[in-house]
């Protein structure tokens, strides 16, 4: 198998973004934010949504972790573990671009 790209691994310097086939959208019928992708619709919880909204292609993972730790008044190392694991999972499903 010859792929045109390699599996991306999250680093603190990654600046994640949403690929073109993925978007976050408020659904006025269900009063919730949905993540739309080719076949699936996801309903992220508040924390996941906070991470995804910061995937603007500008903010680094390091910055996202610092922001969330401040917002949630949480231990940065705990936040880091969660954010990195979340982004790796979503990147592996091609829902986030690193």
């Amino acid at each position, binding site marked *: 198998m010859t792929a*045109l790209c390699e599996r991306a691994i999250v680093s603190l310097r990654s600046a994640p973004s949403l690929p073109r086939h993925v978007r976050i959208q408020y659904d006025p019928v269900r009063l919730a934010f949905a993540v739309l992708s*080719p*076949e699936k619709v996801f309903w992220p919880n508040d924390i996941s949504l906070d991470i995804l909204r910061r995937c603007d292609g500008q903010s680094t993972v390091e910055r996202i972790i610092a922001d969330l730790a401040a917002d949630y008044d949480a231990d940065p190392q705990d936040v880091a573990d969660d954010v990195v694991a979340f982004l790796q999972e979503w990147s592996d499903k091609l829902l986030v671009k690193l």
Partner: protein
Amino acid sequence: MSEALLPPIGMLAELTHRCPLRCPYCSNPLELLKANRELDTQTWLDLFSQAADLGVLQVHLSGGEPTLRRDLEQLIAACSALGVYTNLITAGVGIAEGRIEAFAEAGLDHLQLSFQGARPATTDRIGNHQGSHEKKLETAHRARAAGLPLTINAPVHRHNIEEVPEFIDLALSLDAERLEIANVQYSGWALANRDLLMPDRAAVDRQADIVAAAQEQLAGIMNIDFVTPDYFAIYPKPCMGGWARDAFMVTPDGTVLPCHAAQTIPSLRFERFGDRSLAEIWTDSPAFNAFRGTEWMREPCRSCERREVDWGGCRCQALAIVGDAAATDPACIKSTAHARMATLVDETRRSNTAGDDAFMYRRIGRNFDGGNNRRR
């Protein structure tokens, strides 16, 4: 119903039954509609608008071949303006120059392109269309050049199951972000051609191993969705995510259905958009309520811990094989008719000599004896 009625999330719009390909497993019904039965542009626009109001977030624009509709750009633009995610499901043959770019410009979110084979000879033979493979490759390149994300869809059966590794390579080489290895579901034309399409168990097992290994190896590179073959399954699929649960489809003439093959169930009558609003059909149509939720279930479904996982499976398969649309899907190991699936696999193998591909190709207005529609 045992639970609250939910708004639909997905809509499959079969804009037309016309298609340049004649695949013998087409999911369209045997009685295909001619162009003069198709809804006009304004009616589709009204329908998409009502669908969005009702809660639909994704529209799959399909057919037949949806690009044969000259108003496709307009339909995509309207969905896009409504905030609805649009997925174009195309055979990728004969799309005029500039149109793919126009679809992207109109706001198309994603394009799904079918390949009947990974090899040109297979694609051309299964779709009964010379040169189709080359045209599909060109469509894939044009889609990627227009910035459109791409899924390659490979419907799998005994005539191409050995090409699964090549399908994976093909999808990678075309820069697809997603590949569907979709074992053919035996309804519509596929049911009519079942004896010629059914793979054997050894090939199915090999395929499952190949796909599982590739899924692991290609994590983060390409998603592979594997639609497993019902006749070799232990549990059924939640057909359409459950009957009338979160998705529906619309035929070219505006008939609203819970699934592709629903019209094969003779006890049900389906309503057309225009005669009633979409919200009325979704909420009140007796056909939609017939198998919604879990209340309609009998044993073994009724007390099964999986009843809200697979929702009893496929009603049309239950009808086709058990003769009762309210029976448990025979794909389920708990069905009293489950052994019939394996018997059918064995029977098709016996009635089938190697290399036999006298398909009954899909055709609008075919004679139902099928006799003059066979490949010589």
